[in-house]
């Protein structure tokens, strides 16, 4: 009961401290789980897990099935009720906003780590698999592999991201590097090698040629030519694993990086200089995921086994937004116009 209250009322109480304004233009979806640190397969679930949606009051409400291992979602640009989720059992697809689901993948694809929809060809859905790359051409109903150009071994793929400017142009972040396809995964080529896993790849909302990636041991990477060439960002260590990276859609030049061991790092000068922004976060500031709200520039930090934190001054001060004892795997902002 306490958890339910805190998840709904606490954000309400805090809302007064946050900037007021017009109704947000985006819905915020969280993919993750609550109170599962000690959970093993087969455990009794003590909380609702899976998809959470931000309420009008600023809290979060669970939607649909109770599923503890959902890692991220991708929405159909034509209809936000249609979205695909990377879950431990495969890729789940809903056509009714999360009320009912279908696993489109079969036994031969499991544990996808990420899923992406091509905004210019939205029937095309891509899944980052621990053993390669899955593609659906029918809105997630059926799946096949498209791995020509990926190595026979060394194709553990953590992230897949579609270039919003060109149909069929997709990046895959894997254990051996960043791979690029420009023909909807018919052919892949490696554009940057790594020796550990690439964990996140993002395209700038301000400049579609500007891309960022983070990795386990190669630090943060940047491309200014649409992902054709990549280079490490100076000042970001490669000695610690980095988990996610986010652009601020409201202000060019603001970037955030999440790390388990480093916490949250931000840059406000397009990556030239960086600052730790952990003051106000819990002492164990193990940041699993970060994101920036496209409506107001609020910076989010999802603390593992902690809570979801928000900052309206890009990390200088933080407020808890609830979701205590959670592991939020991903935050996705969806334009309300697609409802």
């Amino acid at each position, binding site marked *: 009961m306490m958890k339910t209250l805190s998840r709904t009322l606490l954000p309400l109480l805090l809302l007064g401290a946050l900037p007021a304004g017009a109704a947000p233009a985006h819905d915020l979806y969280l993919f993750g789980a609550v109170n599962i*640190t000690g959970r093993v397969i*087969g455990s009794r679930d003590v909380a609702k897990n899976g998809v959470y949606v931000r309420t009008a009051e600023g809290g979060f409400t669970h939607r649909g099935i*109770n599923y503890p291992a959902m890692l991220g979602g991708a929405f159909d640009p034509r209809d936000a009720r249609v979205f695909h989720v990377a879950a431990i059992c495969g890729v789940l697809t809903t056509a009714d906003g999360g009320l009912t689901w279908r696993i489109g993948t079969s036994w031969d694809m*499991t544990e996808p780590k990420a899923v992406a929809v091509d905004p210019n060809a939205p029937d095309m859905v891509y899944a980052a698999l621990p053993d390669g790359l899955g593609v659906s051409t029918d809105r997630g109903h059926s799946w096949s592999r498209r791995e020509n150009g990926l190595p026979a071994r060394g194709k553990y793929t953590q992230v897949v991201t579609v270039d919003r400017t060109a149909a069929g142009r997709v990046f895959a972040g894997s254990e051996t590097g960043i791979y690029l396809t420009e023909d909807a995964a018919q052919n892949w080529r490696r554009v940057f090698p790594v020796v550990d896993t690439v964990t996140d790849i993002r395209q700038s909302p301000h400049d579609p040629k500007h891309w960022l990636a983070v990795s386990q041991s190669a630090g943060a990477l940047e491309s200014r030519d649409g992902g054709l060439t990549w280079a490490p960002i100076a000042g970001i260590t490669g000695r610690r694993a980095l*988990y996610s990276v986010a652009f601020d859609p409201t202000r060019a030049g603001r970037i955030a990086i999440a790390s388990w061991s480093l916490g949250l790092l931000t840059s406000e000068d397009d990556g030239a200089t960086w600052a730790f922004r952990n003051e106000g976060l819990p002492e164990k500031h193990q940041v699993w995921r970060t994101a920036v709200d496209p409506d107001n520039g609020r910076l989010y930090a999802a603390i593992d086994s902690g809570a979801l934190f928000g900052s309206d001054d890009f990390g200088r001060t933080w407020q808890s937004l609830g979701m205590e004892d959670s592991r939020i795997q991903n935050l996705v902002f969806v334009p309300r116009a697609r409802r």
Partner: protein
Amino acid sequence: MKKLITPFLLLAALVSAQPSFTGPMPAPPADLRPDTLRRAYQARVDETLDWYLHAIDPAGPLTREQALVKLVRGQDAAAVSRRILELLAEPQSGDMFWMFPWTAIAFTGRDQLSPEARAAIRDAWRTYFPMRGDTENHWVMYYASLFLMTELYPDDPGETWFNGKSSEENHAEAKGFLLHWMDLATTIGQGEFNPTHYIGEYAIPMLYLAAWAEDPAMRQRGRMMLDLLMAELADNSLHGVLRGPNARTDDTSVLERWNALATYFSWTMYGHTPPPSGYGGWGIYFAIAAHHYEPPPLFHLIATDREFDREQHDHKRSRRRWRYSDVEMMPVYKTGYIRRDYAVGSYQGGVTDPIQAHVWDVTWHEDDPRGVHNTMFSVHPHASARVLQMYFTEYPDWMIDLLASQGKPSYGVPDKILGCSPYEQVFQDLDTVIALYAIAPGENFQRVNGFFSRNLRDVTEDASGWIFARGGNTYLAYRPLAPYTWDELLGYRQLPRGNSGYVWERFRPEGPVDRILVSPHANNGTIVQAASADEFESFESFQAAMRALPLEFTLEPRPAVKFTTLRGKKVAFTYGEAPVVNGQAVDYARWKLFEGPHLNAELGSRKITISHGRQHRVLDFNTVTISDYVTP
């Protein structure tokens, strides 16, 4: 798995003693006629069922297991129906551990339960979304259950199943995986081979397929896989006690070899050892359908005949590697040697499963193995986030701590005695084991842990460098190749759960404690030689014989041993090279799927011959047939 057993063990504490668990050691059956064996098998099954019935609190609600047993016995269907409605009115949990119990209830109760109860069970498969999991045993449970339930409800549309797929789609997918898994197991070997607990996760689904599959081929395949599992259990057990190596075991079973779910199956099948407490927890789910299967007399002979020494070579495979490896599944070359008094088993080392593997040991026979730590071995206590990432699709930073919070407390501690290492290479010839270690700089624990049981007698540190000991009727000689000290092995005690999952503390058990030989040197090695006490006039004469054996070794630049075994074999083994026996290099490429007196199969053949003397059973997965024959 162990945490899931907890409710069963609580139940065990609340009810009267289990007859076979608390009774004297059973004698192996002397009468091997099929009808006698069948009656004894059924009596053991009935004991399990009766224990659950006797545990029913007349004033309290039935547990799910008690409800199921009542259905098996045809009792109180109306009350059971009402109880099922109550159980399903609650939020459901358990993933694939939820699926097979409710499959069992659905099939056992299909002609007894009320329409409302049957409808509630059917609807639960729409409303509760179980996870498929991430290991083979998870998938076998998940897909065997889904296969059966979609046969029970063959024509239902996708919206009536949790995963949105129709009965037809789910059935085809389940069949596809089950055939794939059976194909792997019968061509390159089982992945989770010889598991001390996870044997239940395979045996129970296979029994259910054998019992209830409508598809005759799948029904037959279920029976055949169950035959294979139980024949392997018989072949790998020492008087009912499953010894090493094990693809997966745990901190308890690796020491007290008898205390494992595998022992429940030894007891149920062959009756030559007591069952564990609570019938191993999941044992009840086998018992409720056990009348659909019985092991043939041939398997009893394999399980109980220890009058001749035997060596068996098997080909297995590692857990699937997702990344940071050139191979998807590492081949495992497993050796087993069993005599009346002891068993020696091993595989070649390396990482097969990152958490719970057990690479080698000598396990000796005890007249009563209950509570006895009847084993000897050494390990490198390896713990690595990168190696965990090979097998798990997780981020690196939190995995080691996570394992403790998820019920595997020993993974990241320096004195652990469970697990495998990329820096361990092992060779076994009959009852001699040589384990070599070359631990890379920078690894967490630059040490080797040798396990010395509290139940060993006459442990003697000899001036020759050998450590001699006696266990049961077995003489043991342990040779550490580098200096060492002794530590007591502390236990793990679970504390109340916090928000961070399971919390543990170390504690010193009361009474005599096990010891660890701690050898803090990166280049290292262990030689163990076992022998039966009956072979020597005295323990001293065994020691003298060991001292006289030629032994040369070096640790730099890498460990290398030349040793003439007690059996007269000249073994040369250098870390990173193929072992050499009597001048001949061991060629693992020639290893068969099974090769030995009892199980034989060519790699890739899908055809296993199980034998004892003149009796044979052939499991041919190509033709899906079981053939029995007797040679003249």
